[in-house]
């Protein structure tokens, strides 16, 4: 009996090509879009578009302009005309993320460089400043050396003739090294960067969005599939079945199994895409991934059936479905990363399955967590699904048209 209902659901989906595309091709596509968009928000792939103007017109300023335009981490574009006003206009009209004006020789005293940024993009100014310093350290170490010596000059007193000669020599060596592409002393700093878990570029965000899109579509498809409970009630199919010996129990169970399997296939498609396109380490963690996916599938199938079963009409169910899909996804982190949310909203997010699913997948594929940590998410998801399924089983038994 259960398999008969499973077959009905499978045939209905197979013959509805639109729903088929929505169920299995759209999730990987949406994942690719989300991951392409949001993998940059963590700073890994940010390439700011900077409007640059050189109003100093010195040899050093020209070197800085050329170095910035050549830097692969920036999109520095010289404005025409080369004026402060033009740079300001481009920033104000959002043609550029930020602006940079070389108003005096970079090797001269004072503040020869002006950075212009829109306050609504607060992160742009420090990023431009940091990138410019990196560019100068790499391409113009001699200028930085000269500025440093000049800055500390008041503390050291006047340089001797030998010291001045040594400085000139050091500046020349630094310039030659930079010209030959050798690493310069100015590039080294007091900071050493150590990427955790030997991370691949953007890996954490990729896993985050693979989980986020998985739970989003699992619930979306499950709610859509669970609406057949209402259709069956309305069309008299439920009456026909309930007049028989078995009642609606096997029908609900068959639907649950189908919805859960559908979610597993969706998750497989999304994570296979993540593995192929972004190198997400799926195979080394396949066991824990399977359990997490099963828990997410049980949760989405059971929750959808439970919610739809308490609705009397299709309109009610569709309204509830929209609410659940959109609001839970927004709070749970399927739309915007949870770490960007205020702390209270992050705390509220734990009432959604989305947060648990995303956290569990990140635990498996990013933080290398084991069963002793993941069991809590599995329990929450499994119990949520089981309660939803139980509600559906009880409610459909007493359902009336």
């Amino acid at each position, binding site marked *: 009996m259960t398999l008969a209902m499973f077959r009905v659901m499978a045939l209905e989906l197979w013959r509805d090509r639109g729903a088929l595309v929505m169920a299995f091709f759209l999730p990987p596509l949406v994942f690719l879009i989300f991951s392409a968009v949001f993998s940059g928000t963590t700073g890994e792939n940010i390439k700011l578009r900077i409007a640059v103007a050189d109003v100093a017109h010195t040899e050093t300023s020209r070197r800085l302009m050329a170095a910035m335009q050549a830097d692969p981490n920036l999109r520095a574009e010289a404005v025409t005309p080369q004026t402060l006003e033009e740079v300001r206009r481009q920033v104000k009209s959002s043609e550029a993320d930020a602006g940079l004006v070389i108003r005096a020789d970079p090797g001269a005293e004072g503040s020869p460089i002006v950075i212009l940024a829109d306050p609504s993009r607060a992160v742009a100014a420090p990023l431009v400043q940091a990138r410019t310093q990196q560019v100068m350290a790499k391409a113009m170490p001699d200028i930085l050396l000269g500025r440093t010596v000049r800055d500390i000059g008041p503390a050291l007193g006047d340089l001797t003739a030998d010291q001045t000669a040594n400085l000139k020599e050091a500046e020349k060596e630094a310039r030659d090294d930079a010209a030959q592409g050798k690493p310069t002393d100015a590039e080294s700093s007091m900071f050493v960067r150590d990427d955790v878990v030997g991370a691949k570029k953007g890996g954490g965000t990729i896993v985050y969005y693979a989980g986020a899109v998985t739970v989003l579509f699992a619930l979306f498809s499950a709610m859509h599939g669970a609406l057949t409970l209402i259709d069956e009630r309305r069309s008299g199919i439920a009456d026909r079945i309930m007049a028989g010996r*078995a009642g609606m129990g096997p029908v609900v169970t068959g639907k649950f199994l189908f919805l859960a399997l559908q979610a597993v296939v969706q998750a497989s498609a999304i994570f296979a895409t993540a593995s192929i396109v972004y190198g997400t380490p799926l195979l080394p963690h396949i066991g824990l991934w399977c359990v997490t996916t099963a828990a997410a599938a049980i949760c989405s199938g059971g929750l959808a059936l439970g919610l739809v079963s308490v609705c009397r009409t299709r309109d009610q169910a569709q309204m509830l479905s929209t609410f659940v899909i959109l609001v839970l996804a927004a709070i749970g982190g399927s739309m915007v990363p949870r770490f960007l949310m205020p702390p209270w909203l992050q705390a509220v997010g734990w009432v959604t399955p989305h947060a648990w699913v995303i956290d569990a997948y990140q635990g498996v594929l990013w933080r290398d967590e084991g069963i002793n940590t993941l069991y809590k998410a599995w329990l929450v998801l499994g119990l949520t699904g089981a309660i939803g399924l139980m509600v559906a089983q009880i409610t459909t038994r007493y359902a009336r048209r």
Partner: protein
Amino acid sequence: MTPDPESPILQVQQAVHAYGGNTVLRGVDLTIRAGEIYALLGPNGAGKTTLIRAICGRLKPSGGQVRLAGGDPHSEPRVRACLGLAPQELALYPHLTVRENLEVFASLSGLRAAEVGPAVDAAMAVTRTADRAHVPVRHLSGGYQRRVNIAAAVLHHPRLLILDEPTVGVDMNAREAVDGVIRDLADQGVAVLLITHDLEQAGGLATRVGFLSEGQKVLEGEPAQLIAEAFGERMEVLVQVGADLTPYDEARLADLGLHRSRSGGAWSCLVEDGYGAAARLDKALKGAGLSVREIRVRQPSLQNLFSLISEDRRAA
């Protein structure tokens, strides 16, 4: 054990039920035997749906009892295996073919895998739908859809088949085809409980009819016998007059003893001397300047009986 053909498959005794403070069944009795076609008639709100729900075990009457094949369908799920229900709506999956639908409902009715194929073939044969076995239900004509709706209810060889408005929305040819299927099933020994507003169908098909009104069974018996008892030798005279009747014209028709029919297009009366009365009416109507398009004389039907009962209930 072979069931005794004489023992009733369904016995409802003094069924009483209320929703909130509203009593919808007031001591209903109903007995149906194998091979019998019983038409349950009554206006909307008479209690038919509640009675069907009680027979299907969906609710337990607050008073009286329902016995299906000797058991209680509410508390003993096994006795519901004797029951097949074809709801008023097309209770089928529209994207699935006829065969796929029947295979699904055969499995859901509890048949084993090996029994499904033969049961589907038998159901398609008795409902004459085998020639559309591989057509999705949504692409079938209304008549075929109705027959598949019945086929899905007889897969497990029920002893009682409940048909809720089995011909609603189908044309005359399709209705005759459905009627043929119902007769064949009754000939095979299936007890059929037919719920319908189509009194013509009930009169032509049913071996017995029962009128339900305000939760009570007000009349029961063989259609011809009930009509004879109610109307004796009287005949029904039907008069079709022009469409543009003034209130004055309507008053004159009423003075001649005519009543507007339920469909509103004709006027009728029940008289002892049918053909003689028709001739006198024709003369009187023409004399009154009314244009008569048609006058017919016919035996009273269940429709007349139904109207009579309704009027009596209203008068009471």
